[in-house]
């Protein structure tokens, strides 16, 4: 059975006991991403850390398969209260791992390296990437692509959403 390589124990743990699930009331940006072939959905919110505008706080709510749910839980562990640069690097690394062009690096992805088996199943890659793409979208919308632009960061920091 190849199943164990796809569903490593750590993936099933994140699936059954997701970290950080639940939406924060305040946010700078909110995105809703879906995987239209299977109905996986995630709502992800990003806000700027009031104590340090270089850091982005993440909250999310989601439904879907074990891979998409575990991946969102891992994303929370890795990217909550991290800078845009750290997050963007992790997203790129995750995508490259799914394309099998990058060996998994635990320093960048943490438990996310356990998702390496997903790359063997092209139909599941979208499930694994859903939350990571949502984070990037939300982070950019929150004004994080210009981290030095404090005007944007300040104006969105306490926003209550659209």
């Amino acid at each position, binding site marked *: *059975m190849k199943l164990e390589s796809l569903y490593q124990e750590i993936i099933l743990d994140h699936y059954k006991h997701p970290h950080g699930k639940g939406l924060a009331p305040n946010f700078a940006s909110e995105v809703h991403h879906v995987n239209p072939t299977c109905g996986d959905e995630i709502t992800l919110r990003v806000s700027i850390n009031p104590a340090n505008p270089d850091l982005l706080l993440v909250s999310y709510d989601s439904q879907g398969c074990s891979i998409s749910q575990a991946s969102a839980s891992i994303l929370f562990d890795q990217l909550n209260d991290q800078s845009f640069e750290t997050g963007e690097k992790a997203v790129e690394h995750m995508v490259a791992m799914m394309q099998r062009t990058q060996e998994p690096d635990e320093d960048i992805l943490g438990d996310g390296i356990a998702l390496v088996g997903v790359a063997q199943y092209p139909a599941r890659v979208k499930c694994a990437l859903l939350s990571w793409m949502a984070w990037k979208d939300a982070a950019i919308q929150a004004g994080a692509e210009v981290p030095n632009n404090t005007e944007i960061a300040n104006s969105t920091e306490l926003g209550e959403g659209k």
Partner: protein
Amino acid sequence: MSALNVAAIRADFPILRRTVRDERRLVYLDSGATSQKPFQVLDAERNFYETCNSAVHRGAHQLAEEATDAYEAARANIAAFIGGRPADLVFTKNATEAINLVSYAFLNATLKSQQGKDLPPGSEKFILNAGDEIVVTEMEHHANLIPWQELCDKTGATLKWIALTDDGRLDPKSIQEVIGSRTRIVAFTHQSNLLGTINDVATVVTRAREVDALVLLDACQSVPHMPVDVAQLGVDFLMWSGHKMLGPLGIGCLWGREELLSAMPPFISGGSMIETVTMQGSTFAPPPARFEAGVPMAAQAVGLSAAVDYLRALGMDNVQEHEHMLTQAALTALSAIPGVRIIGPTDIKDRGSAVSFVVDGIHPHDVGQVLDDLGVAVRVGHHCAWPVCRRYDVPATTRATFYIYNDLDDVDALVQAVVAAKEFFGA
């Protein structure tokens, strides 16, 4: 005891000899998405290319004559299979295009009428006015929903839909209420691709006739699986795809009443659908040629005709009875697994072989993954019928569909694999 000799049938399907995922026997339970193809169909298509390949309805040479004869003979054979006349059968790329052909007849007639352009006699049936309504049901495949949403979006017509009961049937009260005096067409499925429900066509047709509305029946999941006769059904349009009934990919069929097809403006335009052409304008060929612009898919038509011969030799009553037996076995065995819930009718009456289910605590994608690992090919997701999932409050389902080459061993393999999925995920 089966109505079909499955061992003999399986021998005709080369793909069923292959193995999947570590040398496992392929248990193919995804014929609702697309069926496998027997030698007879593959040979017919290959024979066309080897003996008379040329562009149909063009050319002065012998190959063109033979190709044209083969294409038109296929049309006659396929039309007869559903009790229709060849002149009323249009070949399309697929069933989705066939539905669009009808929805665009409404759009094009409406636009041309607003511009004061010439339209074929009888086209009033297709001209939409403010306040007109299009009716579908809540169990439609996206192919029979989005084209109508788009039509309404472009014309200002209103889309209404017939509601479903908790056990997966059309709500009889809703049929009477939703179809009303402003209804111009009722487009609905013969058999739900997700729920497996076989709809009571007569009730819908009777109500539609009371209000003088047209009726389009999506027969993608019925023509491959049961006897279908357009005269008996009393509908105005019937469409289905070739690839779900042992035929090749790339061909679908639209049957329509002669007077309606004649009254419809063209959909896709270009070569071979014309009568006369000048730089100032053109007139159009009668149906079916009016709706078959460009060089047609003759080899696929010949392949589909061979599929029709194959099914006819088995007998559609026998096909239906065989699937009925497998569906009953699957419903009984799956329902007996704790935590498994059937989405759709659990009663075998008026029910086809699409069996959708959810397993408590395991997402359908994960169920499908374990099944795949055991060689059992099913479909997971919303099956291009997302509103049905919303109606029954499930994110997605796992769906098994049975066909002529499946047997009780395949049902057993499915059931054992679902049990294995539960064990794997500890659900």
